């Protein structure tokens, strides 16, 4: 098994080296056969890595503890379904997963690149294969998941209990695939810089792959938050942990990119800027991988940690130097072809959007590296945590939502003040009315929350206004009913209306964050069986503990009967598991979720008599909306990505 795995990696290495040399040779000499051969070699690399992945999965399923990685990350008692999680629970396996995901993405993108981009295609293949090469070399030389041991243990160590959660089936692969997928638009941009063929040819496919990486990261981040919310037991979902930040920063860079690339698509502007943005996103992604693999900062995400930090730091440094070196070398070719006629235009709004997004990314980066700077210069260790990030990034996020309300209403190219007044008057007036109504109704006094509601309402109203206006126009011109006219409208300009759906999702997210950060209440209590406690309008009665013993863990479930006013709302069970082999207590919150608020109960300890238990009880308003935003992000992205109907060419 071990030999089979290692030899597939070696075959992948050989094929990959062949692929790189053929791609660059074919591109340079304009040899179609070499270019095709390189592309086929890329497909074969993906196939070999797929086999390596299958071998490792098979080793897990057969409990082949002669492979060190399998012995370290699984055991006989583990439910078979968690094999998939164990596969990337450690450094070596997750690196194999990253290499495979990158290779798969590169093959799909290469097969999609239209022929008209000419020489861009082989250069893209060459660049992305160099990145794949890096991962394969690291796998073979420093982190081989197939390393064997002579002394075969009877049972393996098993998997960290925190990872046995449904979210873990999707969260890590999404984040890893998302981070590494930035390589596709990055390689396209690099191909343009290397070949000197710099025009708008790469824009369409670059945008598609930018969006793919973006949506993967978005879903990965949301699922990670959901995981933290249900399992870490403090009712929060985001802690500005270095590794969370490491995935969040490239996502911000990509968000800037997928907005700004639209300006190039529509107006042929920002050519230089878009390449710079994708370079920045890639560098932030590489930084993320470095932080995750034994970076210099402590984190709750130390699952994949290793001593390989320096390798990834090297990767980060070399890729950044090369990409920005090429960028400055080709700068003269990158001038845009059109100009702006007025400072008040959608183009300017896009620039401000980019500034805010990058500012959040860099302030976050600043927070991550500042402890290291402080350690070096003053010798004092300090912490940079939530208070810093909330104060620095919070206002910028509100600013971004405000831009979401104004930007889409501004016309391209130019406008003047009276025009802008005319456009904004309806949204601004209706926003004011809504904000006053909401504040009075719910007795909201905190200024920051009122601002938050105001910008979110403005953003929502501007999207609805666009939808209603467009639907009416279509309805009157085609005579179809409103629903069909609405679908027509969305299908007619997919990037735009897909984007609006995502904007609605972001507003839901903002809603959930505002509600849960400013209006949650919490309580730590000890309850004996039969006792009850009250929080807000809820009354919670502790009715008993069920205990179940499994080979690897003892599960205890505290049953709680919930009543609100006179209504009995049924029972919820707060879960905890004791894992002796990890000497670890893992909890899972009992959550009763409604669109208005979540009742959230963590069962943390039991008294020795077995009849009294400690609970942390929280009421978190509006969190439900945060998780609802996920499906809307996916829907909006699919609409935005859906290829336009082919125009007939005469």
């Amino acid at each position, binding site marked *: 098994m071990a030999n089979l795995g290692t030899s597939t990696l070696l075959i992948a290495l050989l094929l990959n080296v062949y692929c790189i040399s053929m791609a660059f040779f074919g591109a340079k000499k*304009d040899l*179609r056969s070499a270019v095709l051969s390189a592309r086929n070699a890329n497909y074969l690399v993906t196939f070999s890595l797929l086999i390596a992945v299958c071998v490792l999965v098979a080793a897990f399923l057969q409990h082949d503890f002669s492979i060190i990685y399998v012995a370290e990350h699984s055991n006989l008692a583990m439910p078979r379904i968690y094999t998939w999680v164990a596969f990337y629970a450690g450094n070596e396996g997750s690196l194999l997963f990253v290499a495979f995901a990158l290779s798969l993405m590169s093959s799909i993108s290469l097969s999609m690149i239209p*022929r*008209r981009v*000419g020489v861009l295609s082989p250069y893209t293949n060459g660049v992305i294969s160099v990145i794949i090469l890096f991962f394969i070399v690291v796998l073979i030389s420093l982190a081989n998941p197939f390393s064997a041991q002579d002394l075969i243990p009877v049972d393996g160590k098993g998997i960290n209990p925190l990872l046995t959660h449904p979210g873990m089936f999707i969260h890590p692969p999404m984040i890893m695939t998302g981070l590494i997928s930035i390589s596709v638009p990055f390689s396209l941009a690099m191909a343009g810089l290397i070949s000197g*063929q710099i025009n708008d040819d790469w824009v369409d496919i670059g945008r598609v792959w930018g969006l793919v990486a973006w949506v993967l990261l978005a879903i990965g981040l949301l699922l990670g938050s959901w995981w933290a919310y249900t399992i*870490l037991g*403090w009712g*929060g979902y985001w*802690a500005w*942990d*270095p590794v969370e930040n490491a995935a969040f920063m490239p996502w911000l860079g990509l968000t800037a990119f997928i907005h700004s690339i639209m300006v190039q698509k529509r107006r042929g*502007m920002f050519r230089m800027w878009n390449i710079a943005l994708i370079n920045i996103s890639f560098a932030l992604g590489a930084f993320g991988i470095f932080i995750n693999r034994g970076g210099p900062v*402590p984190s*709750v995400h*130390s699952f994949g940690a290793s001593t390989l930090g320096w390798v990834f730091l090297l990767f980060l440094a070399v890729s950044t130097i090369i990409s920005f070196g090429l960028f400055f070398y080709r700068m003269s070719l990158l001038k845009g*072809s*059109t*100009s*702006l*006629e*007025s*400072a008040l235009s959608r*183009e*300017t709004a896009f*620039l*401000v959007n980019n*500034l805010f997004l990058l*500012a959040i990314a860099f*302030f976050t980066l*600043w*927070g991550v590296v*500042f402890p290291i700077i*402080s350690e070096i*210069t003053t010798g*004092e*260790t*300090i*912490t*940079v*945590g*939530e*208070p*810093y990030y909330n104060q*620095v990034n919070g206002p*910028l996020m509100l600013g971004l939502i405000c831009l979401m309300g104004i930007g889409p209403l501004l016309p391209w190219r130019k406008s003047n003040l009276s025009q802008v007044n005319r456009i904004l008057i309806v949204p601004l007036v209706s926003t004011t009315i809504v904000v006053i109504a909401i504040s009075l109704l719910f007795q909201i006094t905190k200024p920051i929350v009122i601002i938050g509601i105001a910008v979110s309402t403005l953003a929502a109203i501007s999207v609805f206004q666009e939808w209603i206006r467009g639907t009416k126009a279509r309805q009157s011109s085609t005579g179809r009913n409103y629903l069909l006219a609405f679908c027509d409208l969305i299908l007619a300009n997919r990037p735009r209306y897909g984007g609006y759906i995502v904007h609605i999702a972001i507003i839901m997210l903002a809603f959930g964050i505002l509600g849960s950060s400013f209006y949650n209440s919490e309580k730590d*209590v*000890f309850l004996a069986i039969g006792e009850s406690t009250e929080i807000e309008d809820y009354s919670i009665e502790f009715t008993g503990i069920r205990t179940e013993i499994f080979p690897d863990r*003892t599960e205890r479930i505290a049953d709680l009967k919930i009543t609100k006013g006179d209504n009995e709302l049924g029972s919820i069970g707060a879960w905890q598991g004791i894992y*002796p*082999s990890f*000497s*670890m*207590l893992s909890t899972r919150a009992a959550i009763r979720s409604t669109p208005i608020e979540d009742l959230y109960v963590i069962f*943390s*300890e*039991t*008294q*020795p008599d077995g009849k009294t238990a*400690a609970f942390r009880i929280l009421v978190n308003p509006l969190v439900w909306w945060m998780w609802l935003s996920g499906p809307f992000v996916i829907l909006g992205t699919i609409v935005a990505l859906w290829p336009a109907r082919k125009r007939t060419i005469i």
Partner: protein
Amino acid sequence: MSKKLIALSIVLMLTLPVATTAYAIAETELPSDLKLRSVELHKNIMCPKCSGQTLHQSNSPIASSMREVIREELLKGKSNDQIINLMVNAYGKEVLASPPMKGFFALIWILPPIALILGLGAITFVVRRLRHSRPEAELERLVQPQKMKLKIRKSLSMIDQELGENFDIK
């Protein structure tokens, strides 16, 4: 199996002291104004031994004993600053969830607003320049013979490629 039992009893022993302290907290609830202040303090003070979690988040024994200290100090009538100083003296500056706005550490707070102002300045500059580049000049640049040659060469190479592809199929 016996190994597991030993481990299990270790876990239980570890949780016992926590349980008793938590019990004490539950017994005497803080009045609501002190409760708000204690939550704010919990959010600004790190648990020293739980990689990146604040007192508000962590369930570890050390975090609950620190919460207990904060509760007692609040009941004694100490101010937030006094309690924070107490914690810094005991655990060092890294116990603060974010650095103070003093001396070298002020740098972390000052840089972001400066950077933002510079960024806005840069945008104003770029927008101005984009506005002043006149469309006529752009047009001239577009019809430059050099440019045309490049375009024609590109089209030709594309035609070549299409032909080459056709040959391949045969």
